[in-house]
């Protein structure tokens, strides 16, 4: 009852005309930013912070605007994933795996509608979760010490087998490459530079965004150039922008599983939406993929990660608001915004600034409904942006990628790094080396090493600390299961897959 009363107050705050207008603006801008390859939510929010300042918005209004952008970008990220096989942001990566094949089968409209619904489900439940569990889950997050984080990242890598593609050795190679790239820059623990070769530009490490834009967007342009003349127009026909009820019903369990997993992945500080969508997809593949249809356009392979990444976006707000610990890159930017506005997030925020917290929660509900409404009928409008002829679209995408990266640091070094990643991405894609493990390695590599070393520093070098707590034990058991399952079940699955393949061909 108490929560409902607070939420009621929140809606009073959120539904003032100015705040409604800001939420609408944020949703549209966010979807647009998310849809454009290379401009992910973190970048989008960061770019718009100056706007919030220059408009002289109150803290509540700024937060409503920018979290709407955040949610919008999470929705929008799927559009280019599905249509162009270019993830608009890192969490939308998983959506490419089945979304793009669906689009090539002429079911792009269906995939887009389905992903909008799945996103809605994920975000809706996560917002409810945020409302109910924020104080409670803050305590849960505290159980994660260095050893537990290390185990968690171990689990994430062990789960990689699920998306390894045809050749596990190449997935391992890719993961190693990602980890290696993550190690460039200052070592967090000792502060010594590693693999920087005296270049100051490398001291802070390789910006994740630069790597992803290079690996995906630039390599996509190169792949496209390779076939430039012979290929038909690239953006696949949309088909109907509705989901058949049958498909929807089949995808509902996937969406709910994805929501749950994504939400919890989002809550873990540092894990964020990428891990959420990754785990959601991997689990769904394990649970539902009986015929090897995942990766070839299974609607559930779209629903699960989309629900997962939107749920994670909501979940990531919990540690940010309750502990001031961002759960993802974007929430880190939002956190910086809060601090700049003179608000210290923390356990007291809920007690001291109820109008801000509950206004935000209410605004998220509102934004979510707006986004569903925007994305079902209006998705065609966003898509038309992508349906331009390739000689217009591809150079524009290239330029936006260049400018997005350039705006981070105003120097051409980052652009050259991006291009190097582009060339690398092109070669690896030709050689069938999966790119996702590289991204995961870059994303988690630092944290994984840092937490291992923190754990050993605190324990004075006793490796036993890594498996001391029940939570760590549980995580390692889960990791072992994730690693062994494909080995044990792999043959069986492979036989089935082969049988299916032979029948099919």
């Amino acid at each position, binding site marked *: 009852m108490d929560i409902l009363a607070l939420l009621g107050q929140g809606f009073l705050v959120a539904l003032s005309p100015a705040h409604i207008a800001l939420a609408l603006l944020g949703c549209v801008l966010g979807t647009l930013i998310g849809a454009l390859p290379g401009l992910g939510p973190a970048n989008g929010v960061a770019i718009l912070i100056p706007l919030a300042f220059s408009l002289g918005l109150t803290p509540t209004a700024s937060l409503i605007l920018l979290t709407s952008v955040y949610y919008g970008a999470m929705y929008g990220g799927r559009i280019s994933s599905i249509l162009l096989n270019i993830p608009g942001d890192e969490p939308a990566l998983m959506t490419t795996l089945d979304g793009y094949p669906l689009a090539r089968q002429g079911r792009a409209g269906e995939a887009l509608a389905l992903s909008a619904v799945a996103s809605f489900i994920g975000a809706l439940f996560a917002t409810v979760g945020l409302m109910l569990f924020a104080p409670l889950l803050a305590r849960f997050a505290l159980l994660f010490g260095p050893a537990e984080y290390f185990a968690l990242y171990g689990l994430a890598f062990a789960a990689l087998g699920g998306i390894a593609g045809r050749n596990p050795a190449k997935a391992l190679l890719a993961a190693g490459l990602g980890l290696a790239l993550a190690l460039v820059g200052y070592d967090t623990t000792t502060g010594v530079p590693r693999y920087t070769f005296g270049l*100051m530009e490398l*001291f802070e490490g390789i910006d994740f965004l630069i790597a992803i834009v290079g690996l995906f967007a630039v390599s996509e342009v190169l792949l496209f150039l390779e076939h430039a003349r012979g290929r038909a127009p690239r953006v696949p026909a949309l088909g109907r922008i509705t989901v058949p009820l049958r498909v929807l019903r089949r995808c509902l369990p996937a969406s709910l599983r994805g929501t749950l997993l994504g939400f919890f992945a989002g809550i873990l500080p540092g894990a964020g939406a990428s891990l959420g969508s990754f785990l959601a997809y991997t689990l769904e593949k394990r649970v539902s993929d009986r015929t090897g249809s995942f990766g070839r356009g299974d609607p559930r392979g779209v629903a699960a990660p989309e629900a997962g990444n939107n749920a994670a976006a909501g979940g990531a707000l919990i540690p940010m608001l309750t502990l001031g610990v961002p759960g993802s890159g974007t929430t880190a930017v939002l956190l910086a915004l809060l*601090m700049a506005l003179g608000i210290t997030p923390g356990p*007291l925020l809920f007690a001291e600034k109820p109008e801000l917290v509950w206004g935000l929660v209410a605004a998220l509900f509102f934004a979510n409904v707006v986004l569903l409404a925007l994305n079902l009928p209006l998705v065609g409008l966003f898509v038309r942006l992508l349906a331009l002829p390739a000689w217009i679209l591809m150079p524009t995408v290239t330029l936006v990628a260049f400018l997005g990266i350039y705006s981070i640091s105003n120097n051409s070094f980052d652009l050259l790094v991006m291009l190097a990643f582009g060339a690398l991405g092109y070669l690896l894609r030709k050689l069938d080396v999966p790119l996702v493990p590289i991204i995961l390695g870059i994303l988690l590599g630092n944290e994984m090493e840092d937490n291992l070393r923190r754990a050993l520093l*605190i324990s004075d070098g006793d490796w036993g600390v890594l498996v001391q707590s029940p939570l760590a034990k549980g995580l390692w058991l889960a990791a072992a299961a994730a690693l062994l399952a494909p080995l044990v079940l792999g043959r069986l699955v492979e036989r089935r897959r082969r049988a299916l393949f032979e029948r099919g061909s």
Partner: protein
Amino acid sequence: MLSATRRTLILAAFASGLALPALAFDPGEVECIAPANPGGGWDFTCRQVGKALFDLGIVANPVRVTNMAGGGGGIAFAYVVSKRNQDPHLLVAASTATTTRLAQGAYVDMSPEMVRWVGTVGADYGVIAVAPDSPFTSLGDLMQALAERPEEVSIAGGSAFGGWDHLKVLIAAKAAGVADVTRIKYVAYKGGGEALTALLGGHVQAFSGDISEVVGFIEAGQVRVLAVLAPERLPGKLADIPTAREQGIDAIGANWRGFYAPGGISEEAYDFWVEAVRQVYESELWKEVMAQSGLMPFARFGAELERFVRQQTADIEALSREIGLLK
């Protein structure tokens, strides 16, 4: 950006020896470089001070903020020294992080004398905190433990080994007479929030950070601040926190925020900017910003700041040598 022709004209005016009085210096179109991504502390400094400069009528045009992330501020520093050394329309946001990295040679081939230090607009003071149920009840207790059984106490902070949060522990430990500061177990996190979470979760025994990072936690009763590393007690509701100095440990840790300007600008331009930053700092408008953002008083301008920066870099260099970070 100021057009090159116009900039040349202005430079020509200086070069031809027109003796412009301090107030006659025309700031023109001013650029402020924040050597980090949008949203960080340096970005905040540029945007807020830039806004105040314009709102107070000190400059005629809105200040343009350029983000130049990389090298922990080193990219921007090297860029200013090599490409914009004569540009009098340029300010660059700086803080203790800038001097720390300069002192430790992290800005390759750069030194503090290559730029002009203009002025500060406030500071965030260091704190050393523990969990509410900790056996340590004073800074002295903690320091005694660090001296006698350092293997049992882990201290978390939001910067790398040798970074500012680590240095504050070392400064306090040295002031308390801890003989071997190299045995102190400092656990590095990527930010203050992460380090505090480790403290709250009971994974480490103490925390070193800035006061702005712990304000919310003090009120919730989730941390106990043993000491603030400020010259005197902080104002307002933070007045209950004892300083290190009153506990007999003479340690100050001020993370100041301010600006430097290119090294090759004229004295007129330098004096103008020193005066401009001082005016911002002393304005009512800025007092509001400080209250809102939790910035504490810290005022050093012009020559005084140049002296302060020289002293701070020398101190940090000596400490870094002692812990083996510099050879």
